């Protein structure tokens, strides 16, 4: 059995670990709150823009604007995977990576040439380790993504889609259902599925012409979609981290309880033994 000194040392170590995980939990909680606020803040713009694009869209425009083209067959597709830069968030990153892998495999099985674009150190590290070909990556997007980050991610993709180099773009990110439910999901960014919502703008005075406006709005619509995925992902990461750190803190507490009990038992046994020895010694003197 471990000596009471060893047990004491372990208690100290577990207590320190618990201090760290609890702090990480608290930090994740406050970052989660901010991330949720950012998600909420992004919604009015995204909703208004979606409504506009939905209202302006017509199949007739699809022939005129390369961003609206609908390739008859998909030969070359891009998958954009959004992961976190940091770990300690449970299965958050591995769920995303698994989703991306199954999407890549499904596309390749369909005879599509797929390229992979990765954001976040975790996804990058995984696919590098596997020796997969990574078309582009960034690790610059932190806890509070900006609309410009989204633009930098997606602009090269939509340009190449417009020239016909790519036939489809998919985004793998986590859907923020709640702080404890952030399942991974793949969304098709391009070809653009016209939004079903939106009020027709036939009665509007438009300047410049409707088509011109649609042409200008589409890149913003794509950026908005990716920005939304980024902020959702950031919120999901913090939610997952909070849950992981909470269970780590709880586990540390359980271990501490067991260790403390062992330590006390060992100490009590030692005291009992000492008393028995003293009593035995005194009895021998009589």
């Amino acid at each position, binding site marked *: 059995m471990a000596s009471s000194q060893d047990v004491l040392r372990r208690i100290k170590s577990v207590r320190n670990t618990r201090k760290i995980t609890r702090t990480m939990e608290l930090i994740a909680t406050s970052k989660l709150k901010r991330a949720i606020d*950012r998600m909420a*803040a*992004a919604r*009015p*713009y*995204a909703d*208004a*823009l979606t409504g*506009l694009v939905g209202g302006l869209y017509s199949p007739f425009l699809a022939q005129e604007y390369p961003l609206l083209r609908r390739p008859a067959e998909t030969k070359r597709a891009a998958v954009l995977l959004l992961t976190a830069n940091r770990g300690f968030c449970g299965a958050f990153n591995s769920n995303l990576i698994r989703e991306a892998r199954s999407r890549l495999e499904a596309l390749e099985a369909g005879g599509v040439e797929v390229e992979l674009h990765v954001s976040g150190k975790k996804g990058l590290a995984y696919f590098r380790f596997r020796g997969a070909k990574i078309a582009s990556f960034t690790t610059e997007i932190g806890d509070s993504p*900006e*609309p410009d980050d*989204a633009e930098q991610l997606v602009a090269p993709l939509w340009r190449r889609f417009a020239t016909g180099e790519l036939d489809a773009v998919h985004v793998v990110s986590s859907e923020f259902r709640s702080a404890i439910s952030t399942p991974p999901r793949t969304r098709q960014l391009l070809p653009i599925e016209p939004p079903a919502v939106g*009020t027709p*703008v036939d*009665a*509007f*005075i*438009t*300047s*410049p012409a*409707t088509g*011109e*406006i649609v042409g*200008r*709005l589409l890149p*913003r619509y794509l*950026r*908005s979609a990716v*920005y939304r995925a980024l902020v959702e992902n950031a919120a999901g990461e913090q939610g997952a981290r909070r849950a992981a750190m909470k269970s780590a803190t709880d586990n540390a507490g359980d271990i501490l309880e067991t260790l403390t009990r062992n330590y006390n038992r060992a100490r009590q046994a030692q005291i009992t033994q000492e008393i028995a020895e003293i009593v035995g010694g005194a009895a021998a003197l009589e």
Partner: protein
Amino acid sequence: MMAKLLKLRVLTPAGEVFVGRARSMVAPAWDGRVGILPGHAPFLTLLGEGPLALKTDSGDAREFGVSGGVMKVEANDVTVLADRVAG
């Protein structure tokens, strides 16, 4: 008599910049400045770069620098979707 007011929302991808009522506003459209008063016909325009000035319902003047985006006017509801807003 209570004059009609514009319901104005100035939004950017990152959040709301201004939500409130306005007596009048002047926006930088792509081809020049456009004044909007209550009762304006349905109108949709691209935005350029410049100051967006408005008079709130209490008569205060507010001004933002906006660049890029789109503005929709419909039944006294004005939605400005700007790429960037300063001030």
